[in-house]
């Protein structure tokens, strides 16, 4: 229900939301946070709203469950979620491992580069921060859209068909537009609270204007781990992840062979195109202090500011000086003199350096209490409320998928499942230098190496010197293995362990054993010895047609089935 339909007029040049009646818009992804309060039997969903057109063209409409309560949220939560519980690919290189002789440290040269027909039911109308809001229910799509158009919502003609299924299903709708005088820069996330603990994203609405492979990032703050219910669940094959490009000082180990996003996309495709990957499931404590810091000055300190400079300093100490709504709040309560604009001074220059325009700033009447009230409503209270939720509810899950418009046929639903292993987090890989064996010690550069993946697999690799001498990379060598992006695909639900549908783990172990058996870099060898590295692995014993060949065939077959992404 919470991915919105963003509407704008035909003459809008660009749009950044979920719907545009001209062409699909450039989107960086959809971000949704569900806060599930089972004790109260209610859910609050925080939805990021992005848009890049003209203010009069902005309209946003979303179907909702029952009659919702609306309030402002904060954009600060989404990057904080990414930082604390987003995907993380880390590689550890232990210097202390082994007994490498560092005295002959050498860095070989490298080539590595790295209106008014039948009226709908108007449940409520309100002003909320920069928005005018209305909650509606209609018997027909025309009833709904006619009312909205008469009320100043600039809707494209193609809208009716998109809304029809939701109207037929009897949904309520929340519609937003910018209040008079508000600008696009005033947009901020919305929090919608509704009765019940069900979680769903009305992705069918998004199909009309979404771009291919649109990332959909979902966070759930609750009592337990959240899982996709209507979609499948996939786990990534760590071997496919780029553990190498972060090792900037070892340029010859390889760069990004495939970005995390592309591996994620391939994994989703290998899991039917309708699946989510869990990035993190763990304590919500990772969000402690990330949305609002305890001990920050309260709003009274801001209201007591004598000058705009004092107010600015208080805002900085509150940690909100970079919040998006601040620019429009300043513009309202400390309007930049037109004379400065005529001199070429931009708002960024003026609001970024009060000291530079001391006389002009001093000449503007500044109502600190009103300014503080606006900051409280639009920034501080949303942050405090959300931080309180993170500090109260124990468990955070972050999930992601990628969907193209043609795949937006089934609304994703989510459930809490306390029966599953609760903690999910991708650990680091360790790149070991095997500096000694039973016969000799190696120098760091000539020591065979090994990558230990977080799922327990280990792949032997040659020394850094060998890689350099052969003008190849560790990641390049490993690419000769079958390229599957999922380890498992599961059908999970609100209880029980779920059903594993696809499990490649045994095959992965077989391929690893073959790799390590046939690429004996760990054998004592001269520093410049060159074990054979073949582009196509030789057959594994015990397999009729050669397991790796079969595995490669399976990998190719899987990739052939999934043709959407390259």
């Amino acid at each position, binding site marked *: 229900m919470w991915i919105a339909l963003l509407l704008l007029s035909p003459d809008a040049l660009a749009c950044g939301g979920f719907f545009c009646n001209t062409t699909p818009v450039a989107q960086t992804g959809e971000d949704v946070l569900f806060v599930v309060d089972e004790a109260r039997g209610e859910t609050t969903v925080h939805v990021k709203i992005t848009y890049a057109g003209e203010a009069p063209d902005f309209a946003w409409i979303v179907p909702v469950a029952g009659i919702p309560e609306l309030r402002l949220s904060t954009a600060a939560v989404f990057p904080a979620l990414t930082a604390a519980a987003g995907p993380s690919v880390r590689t550890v290189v232990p210097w202390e491992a082994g007994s490498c002789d560092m005295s002959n440290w050498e860095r070989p040269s490298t080539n590595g580069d790295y209106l008014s027909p039948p009226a709908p039911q108007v449940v409520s109308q309100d002003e909320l921060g920069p928005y005018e809001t209305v909650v509606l229910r209609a018997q027909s799509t025309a009833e709904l859209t006619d009312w909205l158009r008469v009320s100043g919502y600039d809707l494209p003609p193609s809208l009716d068909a998109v809304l029809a299924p*939701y109207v037929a299903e009897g949904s*309520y709708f929340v519609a937003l537009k910018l209040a008079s005088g508000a600008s696009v820069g005033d947009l901020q996330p919305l929090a919608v609270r509704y009765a019940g603990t069900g979680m769903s994203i009305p992705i069918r609405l998004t199909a009309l204007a979404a771009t291919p492979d649109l990332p959909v990032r979902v966070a759930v703050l609750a009592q337990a781990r959240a899982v996709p219910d209507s979609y499948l669940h996939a786990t990534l094959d760590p071997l496919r992840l780029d553990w190498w490009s972060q090792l900037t000082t070892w340029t010859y180990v390889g760069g990004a062979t495939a970005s995390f996003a592309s591996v994620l996309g391939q994994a989703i495709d290998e899991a039917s195109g309708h699946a989510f990957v869990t990035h993190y499931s763990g304590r919500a404590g990772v969000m402690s202090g990330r949305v609002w810091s305890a001990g920050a000055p309260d709003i009274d300190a801001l209201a007591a500011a004598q000058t705009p400079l004092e107010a600015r300093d208080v805002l900085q100490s509150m940690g909100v000086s970079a919040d998006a709504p601040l620019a429009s709040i300043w513009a309202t309560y400390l309007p930049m003199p037109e004379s400065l604009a005529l001199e070429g001074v931009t708002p960024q220059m003026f609001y970024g350096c009060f000291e530079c325009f001391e006389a002009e700033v001093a000449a503007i009447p500044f109502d600190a209490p009103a300014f503080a009230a606006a900051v409280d409503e639009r920034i501080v209270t949303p942050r405090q409320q959300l931080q309180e939720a993170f500090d109260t509810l124990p468990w955070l899950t972050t999930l992601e998928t990628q969907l193209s418009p043609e795949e937006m046929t*089934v609304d994703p639903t989510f459930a809490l499942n306390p029966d599953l292993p609760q903690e999910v987090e991708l650990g680091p890989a360790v790149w070991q230098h095997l500096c000694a064996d039973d016969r000799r010690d190696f120098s760091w550069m000539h020591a065979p190496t090994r990558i230990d993946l977080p799922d327990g697999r280990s792949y032997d690799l040659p020394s850094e010197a060998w890689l350099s001498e052969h003008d190849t990379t560790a990641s390049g060598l490993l690419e000769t293995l079958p390229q599957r992006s999922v380890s498992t695909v599961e059908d999970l*639900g609100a209880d029980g362990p779920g*059903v594993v549908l*696809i499990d490649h783990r045994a095959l992965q172990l077989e391929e690893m054993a073959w790799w390590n058996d046939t690429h004996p870099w760990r054998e004592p060898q001269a520093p410049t010895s060159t074990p054979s590295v073949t582009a196509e692995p030789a057959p594994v014993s015990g397999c009729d047609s050669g397991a790796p060949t079969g595995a490669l065939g399976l990998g190719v077959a899987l990739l052939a*089935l999934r043709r959407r992404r390259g």
Partner: protein
Amino acid sequence: MRVLLIGAAGCAGAAPLDPGAPPEPWLELAPPGGAFGDLVDGSSLWCGIPPQGGAPYSPIGVRARGPDVLGEGVAIEAIGADPDSGEPLVYVALALAWVQANVGDAAGAWVGPEVHLRYDGQSLDDLAGRELFLVVRATALADPAVVTSFEVTTTLDPSEP
């Protein structure tokens, strides 16, 4: 992945779609909260209000066994009606990508996301205790000759599954 909306076709209470079908392909449904094989004539089928509100729905699992062409995309069509009155209650048509399970009970089966049966225009009170004759059909997008269907007469039940 090709995902297409297919046009409305067929009617509620239709005769078996493919009475002479060979053992494969075949189709199975799982009711909400239940397992494949649980949805049989005379069983109940949960229906409720979806999280996003609106008309009642029944999320069902669908899987099939059959040739590899099913892995190239399938059109799913579900038609449901009250067997006594003939009143249509459900019509769903969408296309999905399926993947082949390789472990457990489902090994070899083609599986994908849930299919949501939506009872547009109905209320839960209207549906409670009502019989539903449901036909679900899966057709391989790459070979329309590969088609399998499942039919069942079940009783709609809004109580928790």
